[in-house]
């Protein structure tokens, strides 16, 4: 196993380097998911999103997810990057990815990474509309 792990909270996500970072001689498959800002939420036009992180804890939670995934799927390389600050439409806000010998493992791991990140990592998203702002998922 190569076991290369990148866990970061950053101001700007650079998607152009992701595959180079996850590439290694033992991996036949690399699966990456990028989450980006959509123009509309429930038919309302989004001006921008603002992300806030409890950074120290967020990095710890991201690391737990990474360790679980590497062990469960025997991953060679893994990346979890989340952006903070104001993001406009089309900006990438999160990148998760994994490389593995065969493709089943990296696909399943990639899905686990984003699903679990959304459940446990202390990062908050505020949607900025023309006339209001909304902290996403705050209310039932």
């Amino acid at each position: 196993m190569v076991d290369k792990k990148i866990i970061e909270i950053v101001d700007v996500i650079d998607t152009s380097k992701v595959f180079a970072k996850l590439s290694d001689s033992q991996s036949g498959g690399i699966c990456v998911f990028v989450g980006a800002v959509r123009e509309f939420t429930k038919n309302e036009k989004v001006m921008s999103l603002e992300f806030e992180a409890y950074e120290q804890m967020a990095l710890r939670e991201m690391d737990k997810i990474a360790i679980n995934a590497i062990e469960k799927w025997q991953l060679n390389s893994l990346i979890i990057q989340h952006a903070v600050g104001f993001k406009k439409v089309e900006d990438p806000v999160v990148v998760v990815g994994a490389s593995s010998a065969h493709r089943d493992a990296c696909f399943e791991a990639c899905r686990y990474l984003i699903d679990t990140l959304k459940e446990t990592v202390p990062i908050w998203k505020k949607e900025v509309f023309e006339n209001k702002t909304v902290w996403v998922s705050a209310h039932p």
Partner: protein
Amino acid sequence: MKVLLFGIAKDIVGSSQLQFSEVVPKTVLELKQLISKTYPKFGELSSLAVAVNSEYAKDDVPLNRNDEIAIIPPVSGG
């Protein structure tokens, strides 16, 4: 005792941290009850968690003066 606030919790309180000096909560549950009483809007949230030293903490976890304590409103990263 100092409590960090994030996201909507920061908006509800109007500050990025809370300071307890007279009535000091002794457990996670007491902290939750105290802030929900002082700021009823916490009761309207989908969920409310507390982190102690950067780990999610259950209701019975005791709080110490030197712990890093944070209110974790419903997360929405990704």
